[in-house]
């Protein structure tokens, strides 16, 4: 493993950032045919946040939770209920009417976003005390039950005047310009801020404590780490970001329903986490974009019957895309267990060494010995 010096890394980082930004701007200014790209990027970033927050719990703290959709639902509904403009409430709650206490409430969307996250965190704090004592599989099923409870309660009739019951909410304010920053970039900025916080978290002392719990609970406890408190913390933080991701999803969709947050959503996010690598935030981010782009965009052609001349390409018809997608997932799970990144985070050293290895491979057998000699010197 060869290391690059600090200056090279810095330059590389700056260049990468600028490249990223330029790409984003290009995707923005080019209207018309790139709108698909734009929505995939936005949705991808939201899923990246959701996956990263799940990874914090599943990959970093070793708590196998299946309740993510529930916390996203809490965030999304809290955001939606608090921010729907007052003059549109009558239109939204057209059947049941709106609860009196909410009739004149319309918070600015940034505040709603934060409250959405906090609401999810509060529920997590309440529930966590009870379910975090459970061992792995039991914890998974308890959180799964939790998500189902949230989903059903949100759509139930006693909640109708708040959540509009089964009818769902619409006219949810979307992304708006922040000063000179156009609305299109808002999700990226919010997600970037959240991800930076998460990166800071996993690299600080508390983050290390989480990893210690994942590696060996008993040893972690023997090192003076309070298991209950740290698990609770991880659960709350993960739920907070899940709530934010849910609220962003509500902003992106503009309309939500309890069925927007089924168990399948949790599974989808889990699969993103697995493909990216359990225990790698950068892996989750990369795989979120890849999976969303593949599922929503690149593989779409599989759903449409195609003809080459008169010959109909076999198998291609409605539903085939999802079959191919799930087969790809299985292949990843079975043969590429580490996912894209394993437990490593993105680093320039990693990229550099990856390309070096590639180069060595391509050079073929003749130079292999020489390359090995070079390695030995390191």
């Amino acid at each position, binding site marked *: 493993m060869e290391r690059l010096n*600090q200056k090279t*890394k*810095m330059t590389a*980082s*700056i260049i990468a*950032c*600028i490249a990223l*930004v*330029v790409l*984003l*701007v290009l995707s*923005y*200014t*080019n*209207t*018309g*045919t790139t*709108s*698909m*790209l*734009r*929505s*995939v990027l936005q*949705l991808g970033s939201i899923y990246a946040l959701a996956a990263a927050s799940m990874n914090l719990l599943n990959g970093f703290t070793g708590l196998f939770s299946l309740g993510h959709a529930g916390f996203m639902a809490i965030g999304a509904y809290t955001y939606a209920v608090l921010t729907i403009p007052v003059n*549109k409430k009558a*239109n*939204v709650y*057209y*059947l049941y009417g709106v609860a009196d206490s909410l009739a004149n409430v319309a918070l600015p969307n940034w505040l709603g976003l934060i409250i959405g996250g906090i609401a999810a965190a509060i529920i997590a704090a309440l529930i966590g005390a009870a379910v975090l004592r459970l061992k792995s599989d039991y914890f998974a099923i308890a959180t799964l039950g939790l998500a189902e409870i949230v*989903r059903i309660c949100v*759509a*139930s*009739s006693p909640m109708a005047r708040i959540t509009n019951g*089964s*009818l*769902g909410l*619409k*006219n949810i304010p979307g992304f708006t310009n922040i000063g000179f*920053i*156009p609305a*299109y*970039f808002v999700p990226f*900025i919010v997600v970037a801020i959240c991800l*930076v916080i998460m*990166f800071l978290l996993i690299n600080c002392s508390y983050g290390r404590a989480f990893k210690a719990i994942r590696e060996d609970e008993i040893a972690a406890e023997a090192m003076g780490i309070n298991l209950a408190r740290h698990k609770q913390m991880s659960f709350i933080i993960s739920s907070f970001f899940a709530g934010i991701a849910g609220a962003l999803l509500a902003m992106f*969709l*503009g*309309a939500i*329903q309890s*069925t*927007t947050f089924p168990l399948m959503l949790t599974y989808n996010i889990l699969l993103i986490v697995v493909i990216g690598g359990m225990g790698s935030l950068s892996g989750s981010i990369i795989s979120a974009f890849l999976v969303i782009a593949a599922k*929503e*965009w690149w593989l779409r052609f599989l*759903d*449409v019957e195609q003809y080459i001349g008169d010959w109909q390409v076999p198998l291609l*018809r*409605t*539903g085939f*895309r*999802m079959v191919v997608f799930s087969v790809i997932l299985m292949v990843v799970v079975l043969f590429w267990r580490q996912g894209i990144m394993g437990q490593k985070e993105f680093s320039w050293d990693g990229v550099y060494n990856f390309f070096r290895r590639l180069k060595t491979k391509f050079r073929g057998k003749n130079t292999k010995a020489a390359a090995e000699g070079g390695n030995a010197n390191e």
Partner: protein
Amino acid sequence: MKKISLLLVLLLVFSVFAFGCGESGDDSAANADATGISVEGTTIHIGVFEPTTGENGGGGMQEVLGARYANQLYGTVEINGTTYDIVLDEVDNQSDKAAAVTAANQLISKGVVAVLGSYGSGVSIAAGETFMNAQVPAVGCSCTNPQVTLGNDFYFRACFLDPFQGTVMANYAITEGYTTAAVISQNGDDYSTGLATYFKNAFQELGGTVVADVTYQTNESDFNALLTSIKAENPDCIFCPSSIVTATLILPQMTANGIQAQVLAGDTWENAAIISNDAVGVAFSTFFDETDESNAVAAEFVNGFKEYLNSNPQNITWNANTDTVAAVSALGYDAYMAVYHALEALNGTDIETINSVAIRDALVNVSFDGVTGAISFDENGDAIKDTAYIKTVTEDSLATQSFQFVRTQSVADL
């Protein structure tokens, strides 16, 4: 230190580019405002935005068939001396809202100038904003929720609405002499819950009593306990707006539980999949009747469409293994025809390029005889309809695999 500086650089760069693109961004937005999406070359792309997988995959596919058939018949249009080919771009919204938005964007990025669909209101509501922002008109087929078109100038629809349908069924129940009703609806489903509420309100207003109001979960398949509690109340009729899947589950269980009450339902039940011994006697409202002789357009459509279905075994599979014409197929056809007539209306205008905004403006004034009756749109973009077709399943239906038309019902009949 490294991380902090990285973060700073990131923020700095973000703000710098945000400055830079402020103006250019506005420019492009302004462009979009004027014309939406324009047709390039001589091919007009029309998007088909339907669920072909997921909960509503079955019904969605039948609508796609209707649209495909219409496209087969009316595949070209002549506007100001140029002949344009009309091509359908189909996309699956998976009966899922999150997928619906990207699916809608997929269509926009393919450059469609109009969209047909969807089956199920939830996905239509979710995608409505995308179509509106892209200035592309959409014509809903069987999305009956009022929210679809409300406040969206680019969404039209070819069918009637839930408040109308719920009221119609309440009227029907009262005219048939029923005074007590039980209502079964699906938790989390806007169609089922909305329709049930409209029915309840109207039924009570007309002097009936709702004696039981129960709900079930998505994908639930055991209804014995629910039906037992309904049976205890002994209602005259049971209103059960639900998906086809639920219908096929709940009907046999009603028989098994010995429930004699009249079963009423909404438009979704018009699907050959529900026809069975247990379904005999149910009544539901729908948009269209294939045996309606009074409508020549419909008669022609029915013959042609049956032929189309039988031309390919896969079509029959998609149509629940029969060649009965589903109402949603007729709506798919009508939605296509609405766009087609709007395109025709552009002929003779001094338009240089065909664009989505012009099509939208033309749609506002479209008026034609469709398969499901005369179609023109009101200020919300909803087709003006005043009657629903009540259909039932009889012993004959079992052999013919088709529904029997009972009568038309309108709100004013009482």
